[in-house]
C-alpha cells in the first residue's frame, strides 16, 4: 500500500518534471516556428490568425515582393558558407601541424604556448575584437571579407588546436614506431599511419570550425558590419524590424546546429562543445 503510493507520487513528480523540461526547452522553439509562419498575429490571440509560408518563400528567394519587408537570404547564406569553408581550410592547415607538434614533442616553453591558445577561452574576446577593428581600420581590413575570415579563424584555431592535439595524442606512439621499423620515413608514417588514424578527429574538428564560423556573431559585428552581411548579421538586423523574417533566418540557422549535435556529440569532449559565445 504504502510503497505503491510512494511510487505513484514519484511517478507524478517525474511526469511534472518531464513536462516542465519539454515546455521550457521547446516553448521558445515553438514560438520561433509560429512566428516564421505567422502572417497576421494580433494580441491577445493564442495563435496567429493567418498562417502561411510567405516569409519562407521570400527568404528562400522563391517569390520576390517588396511588400512584406523581407529579402532573399541566399546571398547571405552563400557568403556565410564561403567564409566558413575558407576559414576551415586555412584553420586546418595551421592547426594540424600545431596540434601534432603539441601532442608529439616535449616543447620547451610549451606551457606558454598552451597559455596562448587557452587565453581566448578564459577571457572575454570582445575587447580583442574591438581593438582588431581599430587595427583593421588603419590597414584597410575593416568591413572586408578577409578581415572577417581572420576573426573567424581566431575562433576556429583555438578549438582546432585542442581537438587535433587531443586526437593525435590518442594515437599510440607504438603504431608510428612500428611503421618506422618496417622502413617508412617520418613523412610516409605521417601520411599512411598517423593521418588515417586521426581522420575522424580531424573531421570532427573541421566540422566544428565550420559551424563556429557559420554562427559567429560578435567578431563579425565589429569588424564586418556594415559591409559583410553574413547570416547572423542579417538575422540581427531583421530582428529589429521584422519578427517573422528574423524567425525564418533563425530557423535556417538552427539546421546546421542540430545536424552538428547529431553528428559529433560523441566525438567531442564536453568543454569543446559549448565554447564561448
Amino acid at each position, binding site marked *: 500500500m504504502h510503497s505503491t503510493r510512494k511510487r505513484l507520487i514519484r511517478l507524478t513528480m*517525474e511526469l511534472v*518534471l*518531464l513536462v516542465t*523540461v519539454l515546455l521550457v*526547452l521547446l516553448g*521558445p*522553439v515553438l*514560438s*520561433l516556428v*509560429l512566428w516564421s509562419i505567422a502572417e497576421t498575429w494580433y494580441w*491577445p490571440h*493564442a495563435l496567429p490568425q493567418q498562417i502561411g509560408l510567405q516569409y519562407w518563400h521570400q527568404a528562400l528567394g522563391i517569390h520576390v515582393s517588396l511588400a512584406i519587408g523581407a529579402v532573399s537570404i541566399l546571398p547571405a547564406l552563400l557568403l556565410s558558407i564561403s567564409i566558413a569553408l575558407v576559414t576551415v581550410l586555412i584553420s586546418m*592547415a595551421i592547426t594540424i*601541424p*600545431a596540434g601534432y607538434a603539441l*601532442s608529439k*614533442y*616535449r*616543447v620547451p616553453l610549451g606551457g606558454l*604556448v*598552451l*597559455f596562448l*591558445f*587557452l*587565453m*581566448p577561452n578564459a*577571457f*572575454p574576446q*570582445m*575587447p*580583442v575584437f*574591438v*581593438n*582588431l577593428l*581599430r*587595427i583593421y581600420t588603419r590597414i584597410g581590413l575593416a568591413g572586408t571579407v578577409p578581415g572577417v575570415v581572420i576573426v573567424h579563424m*581566431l575562433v576556429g*584555431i583555438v578549438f582546432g588546436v585542442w581537438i587535433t592535439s587531443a586526437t593525435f*595524442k590518442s594515437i599510440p606512439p607504438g603504431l608510428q614506431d612500428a611503421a618506422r621499423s618496417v622502413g617508412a620515413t617520418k613523412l610516409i608514417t605521417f601520411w599512411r599511419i598517423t593521418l588515417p588514424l586521426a581522420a575522424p578527429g580531424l573531421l570532427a574538428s573541421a566540422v566544428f570550425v565550420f559551424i563556429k564560423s557559420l*554562427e559567429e*556573431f*560578435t567578431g563579425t*559585428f*565589429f569588424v564586418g558590419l556594415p559591409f559583410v552581411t553574413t547570416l*547572423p548579421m542579417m*538575422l*540581427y538586423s531583421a*530582428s529589429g524590424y521584422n*519578427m517573422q523574417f*528574423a*524567425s525564418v533566418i*533563425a530557423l535556417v540557422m538552427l539546421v546546421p*546546429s*542540430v545536424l552538428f*549535435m547529431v553528428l559529433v556529440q560523441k566525438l567531442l569532449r*564536453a*568543454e569543446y*562543445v*559549448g565554447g564561448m*559565445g
Partner: protein
Amino acid sequence: MPVIRTAVAPPAARRRGGIPPYIPLLIPAVAFMLLVYAFPFLSSIVTSFLDQQGVPSLSNYRRTVDLYARDIIFTLLVSVSNTAGTILLAIALAAYLRVRNSRMSRFIGHVYKLGIFIPFVVVAQMMRTFLAPHGLLNVTLARTGFIDIDSPLQLFNFSGLTFGFMWKLVPFAILIIYGGFQMIDNSYLEAARSTGAGFFAMVARILVPMNKSSILVATVLVYAQIVSCFTLPYMLLGGRTPTTITVDIAHRVTYFRDYGSANSLGVISYALVLVAAAYYLKTSVRQYRQGADNA
C-alpha cells in the same frame, strides 16, 4: 662478471644540431595567435590607461565609472546569480539523470542537449519572440489565467536575460557535470542507498563531494561565458538600462568611436573573470602536462 672495456668508444655525435621539428610546425599557429589575439589583447589593456592625447592617465576609468557603475554592478549581479542558478539546476538535473534510470529520465537525457548546440544569436531571437510583451509566453499565461491580459509581463530585462542564459547554459553545465557523475561507480550509490540515503542525501553526500572538480570546471566556464556574452544582452535588452558591460562596449565603439572607454570597460570585464580564468588556465595546463607524460 660484466665485461669492462678499457678502450673508450667515441661519443656519439649529438642528434642533428638543426632546429627542432616542432618549431616550423608551431610557427604559423603561434604567429597567428600573437598577431590576431595577443597583440589586440595587450593593446586593449594599454589603451585603457591612455587618454585622448596618448598620455598615461586614469581618465578612461573615471569616465567609465561615472557613466557605467550601475551597468558594471548589473553585469556582476547577472553573472553571479545566473551562474549560481545554472549550476544548481544543472546539478539537480544531472543527479536525476544519474540516479534515476527510467524511460522518462533517458528521454530527458537525450533532449536536454538541444540548447548546447544552438548559437546565442538564435537563442536571442527565440527569446525575443517568446518573451515579448505580446509573445507566446505572455499569451499562454494570459489565456490560462495566470496573468492579467492587460498587463503582460515585461521580460526584456534581468528576468528575460536570466531565462535566456539558463536556457542555453544549463544543458551545457549538465553535460559537464553529468559526465563527472557518470565516472562514479554505481557501487557508491548502491552503498549509500543501502544505508538508507534518499535522493537528496545521495546528491549532497556522494555525487557532489566526489565531483567537485567537474562542478568547478562547469561553474568557471558558465561564468566566463555569461560575462563575455554580447549577443544575448544586446539583442534582448537593446537600448534599455541597466545593461551589461559588453553592450556598453559596443555603444562606446559604434556610436562614439571611444576606444579608450571601451577598452577600460574591456579591462574591467577581464578583471571580473580573473579568478575563474586563472583556475581554468591552471587546470587545463596541468591536465595537458599530465596527458603528455602518460603518452
